[in-house]
């Protein structure tokens, strides 16, 4: 295991996917957004020019074309860039890709990956800050991965590319700068539906996905200073979801906080909380808490954005409120 940058792991797994399977094509290429890391994509652009497609600004067209190509022999990884633009492609993602295998009676496969950079990015304002994973989760037929570390992006994307199902890759734009250990084994992959306990603890369960895992781990360190031993559970994939791991942790700690960057109503946290309320009500020693984005469009102004964002401070406060 050596430490690598998330952005580097992302480019590595894309490059290897293209290298190892000639059915894999990148459609769109803003995987690293407009961040200063974006030049790393040149490695793929230059070495595999015929495997990178530069689409027009036509999301419903090229994302839909990726779905069509997946049925006809390719395994596209289609990049939607800013997650908010997936709404332009929703008719094809939600009403076509997700339904195809089912509507065909289990005959037609759609082996592809939808990648997008989601989340409150700092100054993105209302039209560039969405976290559409809850909307996608409300769409049966899509697998959803949400890596939070360099190792997880390597392992989960390998599985996503190998999967015969349409898979949404939820990728928070702030993760690119995260550094962490990554296995060098080129065959390392992470099965879907297996949560990762990112920190062991006994006093409270903190469930988080994507960038919120990083914030939650930092919050857990602060809680430790106050004598509270938090367990951080990262489901890693929303579909399929490792309910067992979450329930096991809750049965041990008897307390639950879920941190999530979707809006509060019908967000990712809402679903996780509902499962625990249904399955483990008797285990709980305190009310469940959610730390989410407020139910307002994301404002531009920095202090307003910070006000509605699920922050480390808010996670600490929520954990304290259920443990004291």
């Amino acid at each position, binding site marked *: 295991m050596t430490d690598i940058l998330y952005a580097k792991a992302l480019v590595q797994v894309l490059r290897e996917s293209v290298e190892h399977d000639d059915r894999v094509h990148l459609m769109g290429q803003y995987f690293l957004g407009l961040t200063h890391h974006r030049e790393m994509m040149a490695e793929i652009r230059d070495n595999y020019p015929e495997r990178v497609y530069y689409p027009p*600004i036509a999301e419903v067209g090229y994302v839909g074309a990726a779905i069509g190509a997946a049925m006809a022999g390719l395994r596209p990884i289609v990049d939607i860039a800013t997650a908010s633009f997936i709404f*332009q492609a929703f008719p094809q993602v939600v009403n076509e890709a997700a339904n195809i295998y089912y509507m065909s009676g289990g005959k037609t496969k759609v082996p592809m990956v939808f990648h997008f950079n989601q989340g409150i990015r700092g100054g*993105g304002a209302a039209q560039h800050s969405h976290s559409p994973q809850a909307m996608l989760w409300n769409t049966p037929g899509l697998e959803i991965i949400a890596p939070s570390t360099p190792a997880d992006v390597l392992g989960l994307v390998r599985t996503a590319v190998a999967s015969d199902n349409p898979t949404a890759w939820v990728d928070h734009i702030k993760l690119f700068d995260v550094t962490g250990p990554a296995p060098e084994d080129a065959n390392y992959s992470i099965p879907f539906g297996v949560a990762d306990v990112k920190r062991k603890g006994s006093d409270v369960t903190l469930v988080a996905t994507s960038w919120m895992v990083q914030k939650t781990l930092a919050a857990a360190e602060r809680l430790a200073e106050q004598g509270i031993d938090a367990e951080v559970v990262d489901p890693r994939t929303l579909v399929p979801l490792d309910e067992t791991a979450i329930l096991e942790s809750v049965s041990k700690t008897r307390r639950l906080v879920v941190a999530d960057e979707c809006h509060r109503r019908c967000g990712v946290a809402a679903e996780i909380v509902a499962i625990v309320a249904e399955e483990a009500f008797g285990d709980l020693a305190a009310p469940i808490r959610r730390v989410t984005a407020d139910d*307002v469009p994301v404002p531009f102004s920095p202090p307003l954005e910070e*006000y509605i964002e699920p922050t480390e401070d808010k996670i600490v406060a929520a954990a304290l409120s259920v443990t004291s």
Partner: protein
Amino acid sequence: MLPDLPGDQLVEQLRLMLVIRRFEEALIKLAADRDIGHFHVYIGQEATGVPALSLLRDGDFTFTTHRNHGHILARGADPARMLAEILGKETGYNRGKGGTLHIASLEHGFPTTSAATGGCIPLATGAAFAFDRRGVDNVSVCLLGDGALEEGSWHESVNIAALESLPIIYLCENNSLEALGQKAGEYPSSTMAAAPLTDLASIYKMPAIAIDGTDSAEVYTTMKTAVERARAGEGPTFIEARTVRWPGNRPLWPQLLTGETDVAMMWDDDAIPAEHAAWHRTNDGLLTFGRLLLADGHTIASQIGEIDAAVTKLAEDAVQFALDSPYPAPEEALADVFA
């Protein structure tokens, strides 16, 4: 050539073009010292926006894009409140909720500004639908980039406008000439099989005219005909205004590659630096407009110098106002979700 207008109105148009230029330059300088996020400037397109939008009147609507600053300033918005919005301040046009991408000012005819490429096209078409059904002679102007024609929203909307003979002008600013493009890892623009771009409108049976976006006379007369047509209930027009991309707009983040504009380049060829000389000499519509005003005797160099000094001060004051203004109270974030 110059628009067929009295001299004082032409000088006022030059002043507005300079307001935009100095505003955008001040913004780029401001961004060098502090992180104000990603923004887009209108440098190089002033000679399109100012004459075109001078034809609008109260009650007309204009829908713009991520590249909105110049359009809103052309309609007389206050540079100080614009900059305050770009910095997310309480005194901004939208009290910091929108920022650079979404500056909106109803009093100047900008009800909302979408930064989703092509997002403005159905909205502008709908405003024209309302003017038509309400029986008023207002017009809707849809300002779109060439890239927006790649979105499906273009085709769906323009068909509606054509079928219903709606009072709308689609003013497409094609600033892709000499753009770098996606393969260089820079901004995408004009990835279109259809050429010329006017074909994308003429198939819907409406006047579709390509013009030089730095030729203010062509901009003005073409737009005037389109606006009169729309007010008379004769339906939509498509105008493609072509401009060479300002070199400072070729990288992802605007840079003052051509320096701060020296207005002396309008009357003194020696003031033109060797680097980017072609830009200054032929592609910068603002400089061209000033040269024509001088040649036709509508103004003199010293007057341009005075206007420029006043406008430069206006931009500096705007920066100071924006910096001095307070941020909104954080809990303001929860306000204004519903009317």
